């Protein structure tokens, strides 16, 4: 079996469409993940034992379980609950794309809380003490010291997590989302060529990952102007 250039050219439009779906999964997952991770991280770092314990359970389960199981849980599981099936919620959960975003978000948030916690805890204590000694209150110290310093310290871990979940989106084909890998696999069975569509899909995934790396590396360079 050899790489078929003609077939590659012919299937490129449909693969690009699949890549579009893959790309469309990334921003909502990043935004939703960040929105739910911030309060969970706060809960984890709080001195209230119940809050911290609940946040720990969330992180442990959604980080420990494979994304594929979470996707099945949202797509096959929620649909069996009558509270979902018989109310307005059905408008949301009947779409495989939405279920994919929710499943991926839960997994991503599990990792993201760890990234945020690590970044916040890595901020040197001396910097915070310096802030307090200047008369800043806790909120001010958090906004003007912990956040900007933590952002720099946590960016590389965040980059790794975003790339990991971007590659993880390839599992959404299992819950009928027609993403890049799913298009490639369907083309394999239509064209009887098992090589060309998958090589093309691999190349497109590689480009997506390189683009994300490029963005993060630029951000890292911009943020590191003090060092």
């Amino acid at each position: 079996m050899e790489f078929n250039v003609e077939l590659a050219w012919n299937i490129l439009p449909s693969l690009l469409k699949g890549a579009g779906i893959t790309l469309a999964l990334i921003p909502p997952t990043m935004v939703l993940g960040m929105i739910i991770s911030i309060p969970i991280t706060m809960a984890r770092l709080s001195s209230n034992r119940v809050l911290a314990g609940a946040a720990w359970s969330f992180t442990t389960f959604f980080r420990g379980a494979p994304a594929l199981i979470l996707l099945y849980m949202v797509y096959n599981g929620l649909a069996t609950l009558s509270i979902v099936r018989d109310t307005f919620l059905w408008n949301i959960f009947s779409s495989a794309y939405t279920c994919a975003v929710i499943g991926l978000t839960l997994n991503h948030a599990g990792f993201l809380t760890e990234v945020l916690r690590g970044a916040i805890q890595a901020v040197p204590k001396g910097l915070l003490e310096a802030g307090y000694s200047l008369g800043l209150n806790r909120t001010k110290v958090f906004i003007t010291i912990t956040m900007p310093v933590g952002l720099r310290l946590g960016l590389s871990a965040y980059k790794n997590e975003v790339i990991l979940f971007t590659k993880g989106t390839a599992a959404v084909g299992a819950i009928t989302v027609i993403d890049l890998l799913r298009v490639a696999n369907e083309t394999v069975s239509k064209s009887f060529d098992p090589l060309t569509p998958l090589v093309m899909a691999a190349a497109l995934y590689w480009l997506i990952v390189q683009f994300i790396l490029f963005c993060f590396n630029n951000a890292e360079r911009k943020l590191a102007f003090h060092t």
Partner: protein
Amino acid sequence: MELLNFDDTGYGDELLAGVFITIRLALLSFLLALILGVVLGFVALAKNRLLQAFWRTYASVFMGVPSILIVFFLYFNAPSLLKSAFNLRVDVTPFVAGVSALAIVYAAYIGEAVRGAVLNIPRGQWDVARALGLKNLSMWWLVILPQIWRIALPGVTNIWMTTLKDTALVSLVGLTDLVRMADIAAAATQEPFLFYVVAGLVFVVFSGLTMAGSVRLERWAFRGQQKTKG
């Protein structure tokens, strides 16, 4: 709960059989990845330009492409590739495709960890080993290797956890692992939550065990090191 019985009325025994397949897949993939990864780590450290280029390409490809794609690729293509390259007739089962794909992908991550660990050993350690008159082999065995463990261990633990969770994807090419069994049971009984949560918890328990194990391993790797108070 009767649905989890270990007999013909429940899915407990089927799930357990799936757990064993998942564990076998994860352990075998990780072991192969470890061996291949250490070799790759030293390839990455080589001064030879050709080896350098090989490592860069390998790392970029397998870290930049979803592992499930590699699983599908090998499942579909390994037989014809092996036939044209070595004239071998091989039956590539989902298990074989899964093990080889995960080993190839995670070897890249292990290689990166090993490379980073060797580069992070302070220059002075090499000089001191030389000054003490140690030969190459004893220098590596007594001075460098114990420090590689120490530096690479946290990263390698993470790679193991990712490998373990990635085995779930091999169910998509038809391997009857834990995830596949849970999916079958969920569809047959119309009780999806029960089975997915059980399957998810099995993975969570395994990462818990990994954590406990890694604490001990790290205690061993960091033996003789002074603890710094943070």
